[in-house]
């Protein structure tokens, strides 16, 4: 099976997230397969975490 470049991008993004850099987003392909589902999930998580990191969120 040919190596999917998206898997590499997912790994890279996970590493960045672990370093609290939540800015990266992965483009979703037109395949709409399971890997794309992970990418959508990861992008959503990135957006949420960026929100959590905002200063002044002292509620």
């Amino acid at each position, binding site marked *: 099976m040919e190596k999917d470049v998206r898997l590499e991008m997912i790994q890279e993004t996970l590493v960045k997230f672990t370093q*609290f850099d939540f800015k990266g987003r992965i483009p979703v392909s037109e395949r709409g397969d399971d890997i794309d589902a992970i990418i959508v999930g990861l992008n959503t998580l990135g957006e949420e975490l960026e929100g959590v990191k905002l*200063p002044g969120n002292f*509620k």
Partner: protein
Amino acid sequence: MIGWRHKPIVKMKREQKEIPHKEGFAKSEKLFRSMIEKSADMITLALPEGKLLYVSPSLTDILGFTLEEYQSIPAFKFIHPEDVQGMMEQMEGIIEHPGRSFFRQQRLLRKDGTYLWCEGTVTNMLNDPDIGALISNFRDITERKEAEAKLSEKVSYIEKRTNEFSEVLLRYTLMDFTEKVSIGKAGDEMDAIAVGLNTLGEELESYILQLKKSNAFLNAILENIPNMVFAKDAHDLRFVQFNKAGEKLLGMSKDQLLGKNDNDLFPKEQADFFIGKDKEVLAKKQLLDIPEEPIDTHEGKRWLHTQKIPILDEEGNALYLMGISEDITQRRERENEIRKLNVELENHLHRLEAVNKELESFSYSVSHDLRAPLRAINGYAQMLNEDHGAKLDAEGKRVLQIIRFNATKMGTLIDDLLAFSRLGRKEIQKKTVDMNELAEGVLREFNRSVTHQAEITIGNLHPVKCDYGLIHQVLFNLLSNAVKYSSKKERPQVSVTSEEKNGEVIFSVKDNGAGFNMNYYNKLFGVFQRLHTQDEFEGTGVGLAIVQRIIAKHGGKVWAEGKLNGGAAFHFTLTNN
């Protein structure tokens, strides 16, 4: 490969067929047989009822059964039980239609009991006079099937893992980091992602935990700040935060306050004021101090000192507005009272100053005017003694002496009083003074005018800002007192020292003389007040009063310690600024 048809269809009689060109046919058959027997494909000829007429050598090679064995066992036994039904159905489809064929994949039994995946065609050649049978042609597709199975396995593996990942990602998005994904043994990209996801989950879990702790800590501080602290959303200016002090001040709970704006909570005039200030803070993006603002609360109108601060994000956009308000109602009332009292005090002070001036003027003129008659008394007493002394008896002369002594004493008193009252009028002129030089000057002057036995030591004195002439007077008076009251000691000792303390310089003049009883301390600095009799020590009782007045005029303090027959120490403070 037969037995799929239970009813007989056609009766084929190969032996009845004529062979027109026997030699040509034999040649052709040899050619085809050779091709079939060399072929890797498994070829059979069979009758509709299932009887095999021919199996190619490759079939026997691959599956292990001979023609005789195939002919002795029902055909469906050589097909995988799951594939028999499909085979029969497809066979039904061609059996009535000569020349028709079908394609299928199925598993065929091998002699060792295992099955082999094969694919191929079965063609109805029953009506062909040269064949009169069903021809099947199958080949081994095990490798392809295995590859397909692997592919399918891989697809389902990826699907399973990605589903797991998606589920965990969804939980992470909901800030639940407790769930972790399983890590397989494949060590592939999926496992790499799984490790990445778990690491991220652990990091975020720990971060969120820290964040919660930190928030709890900050919240505890916020809640315990005695001033009202609140925060508003920068966009709609609705309250998003209130601390306990805020609830107490406004008499409302957080539930009643949060989500509301100023218009919901306060009269229009106040709300407009608050909102106006909020907008100013958000526009300028800097702290705004509002020294006094009224606010209606459940306890009536209160006055607040408020500071409003914008809370910005990394790009400088306002997210929240924070406010800290101190209730200054009581302080404001006290300040107003103090202001009133100050005005009253100032009036009193003016009156007191006027009275003091009158008093000073009175005492000056009284002492000044008293000098003339006193001079006359003294002068005439002297004339009486000189001109008529011979006529006076001893008692008369003694009385005259007493008159002169008292007139002289009164003169000294008046001089001291005059000096004292002059102090009230004199403006002090401060400059930096080298106190060592001043003390040396005092000592020289003192030694010239007074004969004494005292051992006077002067320490290294701090410089101060003062009126040279007046402080000269102070030191002279204290030194002269110290020498006077220690004169009856066998070894009179006097010292002058200084030390710096709390921004002030304390000067001390100490002696080992007669000292004084601390019970009469309150009389020590009074005008004409004396703690010793004239017989013991001479003096008018003005010296220390002058010292106190001069030091007071400099803004300093004077005090003393003493013990009867145990020496005395006098201290005064001055500053060097």
